[in-house]
């Protein structure tokens, strides 16, 4: 299954076409994606959530420093996710080889949260003020799935996957 030749060969003269072909062969030989990477990509499918609203990543201190902010080494990472009807703010700090999450839901509806991470799923509940914490989270991609325990018919949310 490949693009039709016209897509790639638009405007390429035969010499460039041949050279790219050689380089493509070299890429396959020296820098193909490792089998483990492809396997993890296939396995990613089992982590999808169905019937959830996506809370998109709105702020990541690893990328979006506020203007004038000085980045302190070892400071906690700040993340924020937005969906219509929910904001999730979270601070990530080291916990030995793992990560500790401290967060807040807005509005602060009492909710059940499943933290999905490389080590499995960690379940936590928010307190009456919508705050939550989770320890021993494995480094790697993380997504939170939350639903209100007071309004069972309220939408379930899943935060965009982010590498921690």
């Amino acid at each position, binding site marked *: 299954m490949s693009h039709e030749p016209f897509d790639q060969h638009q405007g390429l003269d035969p010499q460039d076409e041949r050279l790219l072909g050689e380089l493509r062969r070299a890429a396959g030989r020296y820098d193909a994606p490792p089998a483990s990477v492809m396997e993890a990509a296939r396995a990613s499918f089992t982590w999808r959530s169905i019937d959830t609203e996506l809370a998109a990543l709105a702020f990541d201190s690893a990328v979006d420093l506020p203007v004038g902010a000085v980045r302190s080494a070892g400071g906690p990472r700040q993340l924020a996710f937005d969906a219509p009807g929910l904001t999730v703010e979270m601070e990530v700090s080291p916990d030995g080889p793992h990560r500790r999450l401290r967060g807040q839901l807005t509005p602060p509806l009492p909710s059940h949260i499943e933290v999905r991470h490389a080590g499995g799923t960690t379940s936590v509940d928010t307190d009456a003020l919508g705050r939550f914490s989770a320890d021993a989270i494995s480094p790697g991609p993380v997504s939170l799935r939350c639903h209100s325990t007071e309004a069972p018919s309220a939408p379930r949310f899943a935060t*965009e996957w982010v590498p921690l």
Partner: protein
Amino acid sequence: MGARFDERRLAQAAATGDQLAWDALVDRFGELVWSTARAWGLTPEQGADAVQVTWLRLAEQLERLQEDDDRLGVWLAATARRESLRLLGPGRETRQGPDMSSGPPAPAAAAGSSRDGLLWRVVHELPERCRRMLRILVTTPPPSHEEVAAALDLPVASVGGLRADCLRVFRGRMAKISISAEIGDS
């Protein structure tokens, strides 16, 4: 348009829970996602992380993307670029000059005496802009101009010209080391 029709059908099937359709999407676009991460200079370990987050996000958004799933490659390339930049962090330094840390893995570096190995080393000695362009272009199957633009954050209209420029720069480097860039020359 046959290829794009297949991609749309695969995405629709995956959205209904078809793991095999998903696997076919990974086979189709896996190299593009990996190449994007490597084009931005990620190490193999960083690349593995960026690739995984990209596919996890696609799995999460399959249903939402259905109207656009003839542009799946573009979405994947753009997502892979954003995840690569996230892993590199703000204030990352642009690599200048020869730097094999994002080049061939150690055993392949030793294969530099072969023509393939030599070509591959020269790619990684190009200025950053051209290294990225050539690294993306050598994806299998060849990426469309739109996919290249998404991977490298370039205007689509500039892709053809930059491609030509970078191939010219590459030939210039090869000529400097007195090796012909043409097939069949010794």
